[in-house]
């Protein structure tokens, strides 16, 4: 177990290294002078620009700058936002909880809904329930989350006046964003749960259990369900990543102060340090979640360790 975990941890190192290189090189690829952008709302002289460049060590070679970027990053310093003149890490961690909250709520919602629908469909394979549920799921996958968000606002905020349309913070502000974000993931989970449920129901030990005279309900409960859920866990990591970045659209729709909205505003503002910081945090968060999922999966299903 420990060997598996340490091997898995080790495999993460080059990925993290690659991610930091990729994020850092963004600044080099962007057309336009970041220094001029920083000073753009004010009239500047060439001397001021030169001084700023020196202050930011922009004249150093690429790898020296990259080294500094990583070193500072390890010390919790991702630079200063051009637009707000505040530390990037501070700006990110102010809004990060809102995004994590939203992604977790959406994941919980989509898991519950998706599994329920998937199990239901599998148990009644090829019935109208199955066909209906799967058509619904395909529709769910096809629906743009941001459009669903607008429709929810139209119905629940503007017409029924039940839920607040914008902002973040408390539970009422979380419901519609979580639903809009989670429904697509629910559809994917439903399809996956259904197919892995069907696989299990076909396998021998369920047939054996049935032959032993156990009732249908017990079979489903004891054997099929738990075994079917194991593969579903693996896609949690994947889904969480998709949900995490899905906040980019949902936070924009609901005017929710979060990392996704921060990233979009930073891109539109050409606030490069903030773009780098938010992209980096998104990617690292995803790497960490996948690492955790893999470890949990290995604990739940020992077979995986020997593959």
């Amino acid at each position, binding site marked *: 177990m420990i060997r598996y975990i340490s091997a898995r941890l080790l495999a993460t190192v080059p990925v993290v290294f690659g991610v930091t290189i990729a994020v850092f090189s963004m600044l080099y690829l962007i057309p336009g002078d970041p220094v001029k952008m920083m000073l753009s709302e004010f*009239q500047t002289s060439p001397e001021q620009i030169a001084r700023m460049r020196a202050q930011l060590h922009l004249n150093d070679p690429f790898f020296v700058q990259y080294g500094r970027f990583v070193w500072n990053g390890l010390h919790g310093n991702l630079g200063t936002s051009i637009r707000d003149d505040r530390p990037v890490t501070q700006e990110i961690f*102010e809004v990060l909880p809102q995004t994590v909250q939203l992604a977790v709520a959406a994941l919980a919602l989509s898991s519950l809904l998706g599994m329920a629908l998937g199990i239901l469909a599998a148990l009644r394979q090829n019935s109208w329930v199955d066909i209906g549920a799967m058509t619904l799921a395909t529709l769910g996958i096809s629906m743009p989350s941001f459009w669903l968000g607008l429709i929810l606002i139209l119905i629940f905020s503007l017409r029924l006046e039940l839920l607040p349309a914008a*902002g973040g913070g408390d539970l*009422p502000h979380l419901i519609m964003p979580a639903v809009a974000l989670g429904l697509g993931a629910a559809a994917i989970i439903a399809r996956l749960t259904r197919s892995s449920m069907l696989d299990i129901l076909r396998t021998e030990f369920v047939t054996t259990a049935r032959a032993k005279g156990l009732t249908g309900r017990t079979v*489903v409960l004891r054997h099929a369900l738990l075994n079917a859920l194991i593969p579903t866990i693996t896609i949690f990591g994947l889904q969480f990543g998709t949900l995490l970045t899905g906040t980019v659209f949902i936070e924009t729709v609901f*005017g929710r102060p979060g990392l996704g909205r921060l990233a979009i505003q930073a891109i539109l503002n050409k606030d490069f340090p903030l773009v780098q910081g938010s992209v980096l945090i998104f990617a690292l968060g995803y790497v960490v979640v996948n690492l955790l999922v893999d470890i949990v999966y290995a604990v739940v299903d020992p077979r995986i360790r020997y593959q």
Partner: protein
Amino acid sequence: MGVARRAGVGAGIVLLAVALAAVGAVTAAPSGTMLTVGLDQEPPTLDPEASPSAVTFQIIPDVTESLLYQGLDGKIQPWLASAYKVSPDGKSFTFTLRADAKFTDGTPVNAEAVKWNFDRVVNPNYKAGGSLSALSGYAGSTVVDDHTVRIDFKAPYAPFLSYAAGGTLALVSPKATQTQGSDVNLKPVGSGQYVVSEYVPKDHITLTRNADYDRKPPWSDHQGPAYVNTIVWKFIPEAGTRVTTVESGETQMISGLSLPAATLSHLATERTLRIDRNPYPGAPRIWVLNVRMAPTNDLKVRQAIEYGINRAAIADSVFKGLGTTACAPLTQQTLKTPSLCNAYPYDPKKAAQLLDEDGWKMGPNNIRQKDGKPLTLTINSINYGSGNLPEIELLQGQLLALGIDARIKSQARPPWYEDNYHCATNGPVLFLRSTDPDGLFALFDSANIGGNFNWACYSNPEVDKLLQTGRETYDPAKRSAIYRQIEKILVDQAISVPLVDEYSVWIVRSNVTGTKYNFSGYPILTDVKIGK
């Protein structure tokens, strides 16, 4: 099968419980001592002397105070200064300060503090905003005695009294400002009826009542502190969302900037709401045409655009209720110029004829061309986070009908400024809330090319000279004549397309009374009371 059914029902119950919890929370409305105001954008800074943006000055009048006050009627009244005197040569202004005014950190508002503030603005190491042009020609301040300060200028400076009454020259505490570093951008310390108690970036600003305030400001109905305990300024860029919040009571007041016209007329019929509407002074919503870049460097093309843009259609559609058709580079409220209103009547045929004469013949895809080159131009469009301003796409559509292919360069504030400084597009659409016709100086004096706000990149010695004369002239009638003359030149040369004379529009819940507005059209909330 039973399991599945139960799981489904279980999920349903969870969702229902969540929904019920939500309903419970929404009905708990905020109490009467808190006012929540929805604003379209976050200010770049709250430091009044650093801000180049009008947003700051919508929030700050409750926090900081100025030497003078200019109300909606335009009359200059005493505020922190109890009296003022202009020297016979018009170059020096002597202010007598009230003895009882204190900044909220306890520092007295005295002559030393005024001098410190004004010196700060012109300090080359300080990133001053609109305050810098308000102090143009500043020669220095002299502390005559503790309560008397004299401000000197290199030349006579007629607009100064109005500027001294504006938000850009509001005073911050020298003591607090020197110690708080960059926090001055978030929590400037003034002498007003509120203090900034919390600043949550990207979300809201909380102002808390200054209970020690014991004066009666010039607009107020009472002496002493403001009525409402807390004012929350919430940033809600999406206009539609902003409207929802004021209807539901999440906010009690919202900015009407860029509100969809249909929504506004719909709101006017709601009994729970009131619409406060006052004209903005200064320049209208205006498209300045970059005279350095093709094709707008060509007078004929510019004139064709003037004839071909249907301003009335813009004012009557997306700006309905938010303004009236503009005529000139200054709003009619700032300077009446009826003759200029008919300078370029909407006449697409005339526009087409001008373009034809100029060699721009109709080409493929209904885009005009000359020597094989299509007639294209770029409009620099500022995007505060919820898309382009509503007039931009209308302009694009109207230009297309003329055979002009207008590209929209939609960008956030910093790159938008950058392009304006470099004359890199055919011009932005902007507005300038100047309290004096001298606002034309910022817009069209050649000294402001590459700076704020000569983004037409227009240089005309005759106009420069007239602008300077306008600044030096105190006689109101003579001043007006000078500015009318400048406007005539600008209109003849088609340097800008004035679109809409805008109103400052605020949608307020009916139970909120006592909203006041200064000459700039910015709200003052110290007399607000919230009823049942």
